[in-house]
């Protein structure tokens, strides 16, 4: 009972994380500063890990803090930071409101499934494939649900409000177009949402303890936690109230044991226990060689008691553990880098057949370095899709190959990339899109425009057009004399940045007469030509009126 307050703290912290995360994914006004978004997502385990193996800096070590936290108190991540965890808790809570809650019985852990998945994920990661991450990372899955389903709903609500206000001659709320360019990602999100609703209502945190790779990994770490949730044999009256509340189904009342590797640290049991029969206790020293048992030498820690000075020792040994882990991670890193080129090249070139007017591989956003860098880092959380002010970034299905499912691409049929915007590079939590400045972006070539003359309006209809050149921010697409007075586009690939304005603006149907072919490695474009004074004399202001 003394620790019951922990539940309240957990609920508040998790809701703060959850609400802000949801807001970041549905917001279209860019209200939150990107630095704040970065801080919010700093602790997201897999994104942080992926960023860390690239940057090796404290700025990306959020996952490390999570590991330390886990080593001390168990899977706090699962109950507070993880948006999918909180989402499940919300569904469980709602189901309790409407019907008598299904009690999640204590079952044996599905260790076979858990470790197979984790192993497969790590193995795939070694081969630079994020296949399992894209499918199973809880943060990215939640992101896909928020961005793919909740965001359109949010937009629709906003648009209805906008329309109503317009009836009263107010334009304070503007409408936001809801356009879906690829259905599979949306359907996947919908399928997953239905699944997770079902699971959270009937099975509690089944996902977290069976499929979730982060849950499994943190579960392994929480086996070695300094403080563990245990039952007190003397205080416990075997009333079973704790087990009734446990959404992870990890409390075995008969044996008075808690499977702490499956405990998501929600602290509901603390609140439920009428005695002081369940609580945190120091467990580290007793752990080795012992099953998780409740020896009466171990004492429950309550708030009034100071922490044992011996804790410090355990901290040291924990750190040692982590150091060995780091070197292992370095090994992974080199392995990943080494195998990157071979495997992803396969991925990239196997998928798409060359087709006129369509880039052979998807164009990746500015800052993503190369298609290999991007596909081996992006967990498809779709935060960039949500944050992109123009919505040129759109989720794909299998265009990057099966390994890169749902990763966003620059969809120039949806929109084009704003010349001065670097939003996606600022928000990306995984380092798939690395931060760039506007100055860097102005000469960053993510692809080059290709002109297909034979379907251009100017050629087929012999009328003026030039929409492509109009929109070009660098005038890489220029209009040059064609027949008579007619002008026709000409592309200077050296100064093209691949923003896709020309492709978006091109009015030809069904295929565009100008399109951006992706650069596998992003390159540096030349600065736009300083001066193009054509045959006509320079226009100068005259002293008098010319009419």
């Amino acid at each position: 009972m003394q620790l019951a307050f922990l539940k309240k703290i957990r609920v508040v912290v998790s809701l703060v994380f959850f609400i802000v995360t949801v807001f970041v994914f549905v917001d279209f006004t860019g209200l939150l500063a990107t630095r704040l978004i970065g801080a919010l997502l700093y602790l997201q385990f897999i994104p942080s890990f992926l960023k860390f193996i690239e940057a090796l800096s404290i700025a990306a070590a959020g996952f490390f803090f999570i590991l330390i936290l886990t080593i001390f108190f168990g899977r706090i991540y699962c109950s507070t930071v993880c948006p999918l965890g909180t989402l499940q808790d919300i569904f469980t809570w709602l189901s309790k409101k409407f019907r008598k809650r299904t009690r999640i019985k204590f079952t044996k852990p599905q260790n076979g499934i858990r470790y197979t998945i984790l192993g497969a994920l790590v193995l795939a990661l070694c081969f630079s494939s994020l296949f399992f991450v894209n499918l199973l990372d809880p943060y990215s899955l939640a992101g896909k649900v928020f961005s793919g389903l909740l965001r359109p709903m949010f937009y629709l609500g906003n648009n209805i409000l906008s329309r109503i206000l317009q009836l009263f001659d107010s334009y304070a709320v503007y409408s936001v177009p809801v356009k879906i360019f690829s259905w599979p990602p949306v359907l996947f999100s919908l399928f997953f949402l239905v699944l997770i609703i079902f699971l959270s209502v009937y099975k509690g945190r089944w996902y977290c303890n069976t499929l979730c790779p982060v849950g499994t990994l943190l579960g392994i770490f929480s086996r070695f936690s300094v403080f563990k949730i245990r039952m007190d044999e003397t205080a416990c009256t075997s009333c079973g109230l704790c087990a009734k509340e446990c959404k992870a189904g990890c409390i075995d009342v008969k044996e008075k044991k808690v499977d702490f590797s499956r405990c998501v640290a929600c602290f509901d049991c603390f609140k439920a226990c009428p005695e002081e029969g369940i609580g945190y206790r120091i467990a580290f020293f007793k752990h080795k060689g012992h099953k998780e048992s409740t020896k009466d030498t171990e004492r429950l820690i309550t708030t009034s008691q100071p922490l044992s000075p011996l804790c410090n020792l355990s901290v040291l040994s924990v750190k040692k553990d982590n150091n060995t882990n780091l070197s292992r991670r370095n090994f992974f890193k080199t392995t990943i880098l080494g195998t990157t080129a071979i495997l992803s090249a396969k991925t990239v070139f196997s998928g798409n057949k060359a087709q006129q007017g369509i880039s052979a591989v998807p164009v990746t956003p500015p800052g993503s370095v190369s298609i290999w860098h991007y596909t081996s880092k992006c967990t498809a959380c779709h935060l960039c899709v949500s944050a992109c002010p123009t919505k040129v970034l759109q989720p794909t299905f299998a265009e990057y190959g099966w390994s890169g499912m749902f990763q966003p691409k620059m969809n120039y049929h949806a929109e084009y990339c704003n010349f001065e915007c670097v939003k996606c590079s600022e928000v990306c939590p995984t380092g798939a899109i690395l931060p760039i400045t506007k100055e860097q972006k102005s000469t960053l070539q993510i692809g080059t425009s290709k002109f297909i003359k034979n379907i251009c309006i100017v050629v087929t209809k012999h009328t003026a057009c030039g929409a492509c050149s109009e929109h070009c921010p660098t005038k890489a697409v220029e209009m040059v004399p064609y027949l008579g007075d007619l002008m026709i586009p000409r592309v200077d690939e050296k100064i093209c940045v691949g923003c896709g304005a020309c492709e978006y603006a091109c009015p030809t149907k069904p295929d565009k007469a100008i399109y951006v072919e992706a650069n596998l490695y992003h390159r540096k474009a030349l600065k736009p030509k300083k001066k193009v004074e054509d045959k006509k004399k320079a226009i100068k202001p005259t002293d008098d009126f010319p009419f």
Partner: protein
Amino acid sequence: MDRREFFKKSILTGVAAGAAMTFGDFRKVFAGKIPPPGAPGPFDLVAVKDGEPVQMFDKAIESLGGMKNFVKQGQTVVVKPNIGWDTSPERGANTNPALVKRIIEQCFSAGAKTVYVFDNTCDNWNKCYENSGIQKAVKDAGGKIVPANSESNFQQVDVKSGKKLKNAKVHELILSSDVFINVPVLKCHSSSVITACMKNHMGIVWDRGFWHRNNLNQCIADFAGYRKPDLNVVDAYRVMTKRGPRGVSEEDVVLMKSLILSKDIVAADAAAAKLFGTEPSEVPYIKLAHEAGVGTMDLTKLSINRIKM
């Protein structure tokens, strides 16, 4: 046409009819004697040079009899600048914000009820509105800056006189407002030689792609006859002379410090072309609109007030 607009229109038609009956004869009585204050001036076109946008506009509108000639008490006005691009005012890709602000202020002084400002932009509209400085200018002047990014605000209309363009989706404010003031910026244009008044209309329709697919110049000329602005104000203060219509840097801009006002959209474009050093007949859509009788590009036939500041 939605219900709101239907009501608006029916009421306005009634008011207009009543006003015509009331004041129609009144005007005639005095027409020969004293020109009433704010009566249409004798000029078809006013051109101003070598001033700041605000002063040039004040002078020009004064010589046309003041804004009262165009905006009556209680009327709704739509001011349509060019806000097509996400660039700063110095780049000359969008209409000068100071000019837009002044026009709105003048509208309000003339008794306008509401002044709306919008453009169906090319670049991301939020960024265009903000970085062009026009959003702030409009708000400062008390006008309403209206997003035009949603197809639901555009209504299908027939363009009866159109040769190529038979119909278009037009922003509802153009249809429902009493007064339409067209405020383009003069620029060179990669598709249509220059852009000014008639080309600026591409920002009041939804589907520009159709125009580009179906003889752009003809479509521009066709639509110019659909709803002629009550006043055209050509901002030729900073004129983009190359790499238009978006421009790449400030190097593309020449300081011309000029302004053109006319009720005749074709004449205003013709004068703008002349300023640019191009013959109006060399700009295909000006020629087409002239031939269709939308207005005249023959400046010699017009009474022009030339003001040097």
